[in-house]
């Protein structure tokens, strides 16, 4: 009986040890995966979460003023980077007060056509609202949604989709 009890204790200890080992492995593994992700992200340098952070498709309204901002899947929230871009656009628009713009909102191909039209409109308006808080009058801004109709990247992969989820500021005059 005693032996049995002892054995049980031993086994318990072993199991604990196992658990500790397993956990360390898990942590180690997670670290590896994470660093792999981090490096792969860095190596392409193009996405954070699923928001595009690259510059492949970006054009410039003026030197240092990018023309577009990007969105996460199904989202119309402006990221920190997007807000910075829009502040630059606002500054440029304030300096060039005769310029009017169209904000073209787009969605990726992974949604139904009609919902995407609404989503593109919502994204362009998120950009419009931000520009307006930085002093750009609403009558200088019009909004146009293309939904999923005008992708910039014809790929069927997450990176291509991230480039297509965008609001582009286009000079109208």
């Amino acid at each position: 009986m005693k032996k049995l009890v002892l054995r049980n204790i031993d086994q318990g200890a072993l199991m604990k040890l196992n658990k500790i080992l397993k956990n360390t492995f898990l942590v180690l593994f997670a670290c590896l995966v994470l660093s792999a992700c981090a490096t792969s992200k860095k190596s392409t340098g193009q996405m954070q979460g699923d928001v595009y952070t690259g510059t492949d498709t970006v054009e410039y309204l003026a030197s240092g003023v990018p023309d577009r901002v990007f969105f996460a899947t199904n989202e119309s929230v402006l990221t920190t980077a997007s807000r910075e871009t829009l502040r630059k656009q606002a500054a440029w628009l304030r300096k060039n007060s005769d310029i009017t713009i169209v904000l073209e909102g787009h969605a990726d191909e992974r949604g139904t056509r009609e919902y995407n039209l609404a989503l593109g409109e919502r994204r362009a308006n998120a950009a419009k609202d931000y520009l307006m808080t930085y002093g750009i009058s609403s009558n200088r801004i019009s909004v146009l949604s293309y939904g999923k109709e005008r992708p910039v990247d014809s790929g069927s992969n997450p990176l291509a989709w991230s480039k297509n989820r965008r609001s582009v500021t286009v000079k109208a005059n």
Partner: protein
Amino acid sequence: MRNLIILFLIFIIPTKALGLIEVDITRGNLNPLPIAVSPLSIDDESKKSFEKTLKKKDIGSEISKVIEKNLKTSGLFNPLDKNAFLQAPDIAHLKPRFEDWNLIKAQALITGKVKNVDDKLRVEFRLWDVLAGKEMMALAFTTVPNNWRRVGHIITDKVYERLTGEKGYFDTRIIYVAEEGPKTKRIKKLAIMDQDGANNKFLTLGNELVLTPRFNPTSQMVTYLSYFRNLPRVYLLDIETGIQEVVGDFPGMTFAPRFSPDGKKIIMSFAKDGNSDIYTMDLENRIVEKITNHPSIDTSPSYSPDGKFICFNSDRSGYQQIYVMKSDGSNVKRISFGNGLYGTPVWSPRGDLIAFTKLHKGKFYIGVMRTDGSGERLLTENFYQEAPSWSPNGRVLIFYRETKTDDKGEGFSAKLWSIDLTGYNERLVDTPTDASDPSWSSLLSN
């Protein structure tokens, strides 16, 4: 078109439904009914005159081919090889030798006769039950010769109705968006064709982007979205006259249009300041009504066939889901609760089901559910597909599918597909170009 056809029912022999063949369409039909479609017989004189006007060598045989193709694509019938037929068309039409047709395992037989009567096309046909050795139906039509394909479709509708007990869907048309060019710069045109792909015609030139055409269930009017002058607005188009007009005077994008079942209203979304709500416009008095009032996206509205309810797509719960409300906008209820996102709800013309698109774990599905959201059934899974439209009898759905591009972003295509409500009989619908956003018309004749 509807006005053009002159239909004279010469004689209808009422038939008894006792113990005759029937086709069950409520289940997936794995044993399509063997049917023999005898070439419609034609006398030499009529043959020659129609050859001159229609440029078809044997119009009787051509009409029977239309019927045969319809029956085959329905998935419910198996038209037998004409080479195996023993009896000549003209004699079979008078009195079939049922033993001969039985021998080649035909259970039903269609025979007919074509004649030129005062430069009109007169077609009579008979449907026979081979096993019972009885005539099931006999009808005749007279029409302008150019309508010969429609005669084939109408005959198919009559046969389908006689054998399944439900209305057919063959004398119908599909309006859709024809697509060409690279994925990043697609050129889109409105196009219309017969349900079987014949008589394809482009209705716009492709100068502006056009999307989501939908038939008026009661007339030859179409509503669609056009980016004319870069202003995305809902338009109305009369197919016969080609006259177009913008629907309503909205200070922003209107989209996702559909007709009410009586054809008197258009229901659509209007987007303003980042918010899309559902509106209707009465086509007679032009009165606009706001139906939903919610800071979320409300779109893709579709009426129930009695006009009392509307199903629509909203992300008010955080993600795209399907909702049903009364047609005045009250009593909004969410009906989709499965995993994934739901879009493009369309109410069945029979009233009992709602077809939808579902996105779950990176795959797109076309499915149906009851109008309270119960009994969800997914019919087909693919990389990308959406926008189902019902056949007028509520038995078949047509939708479009897009392909995944390769590593270089090439290989994109968009095509129309159809599938039975049962989930069987999935078929590519042939179109001369790439195609999307199909909408099925009502029966052109009843």
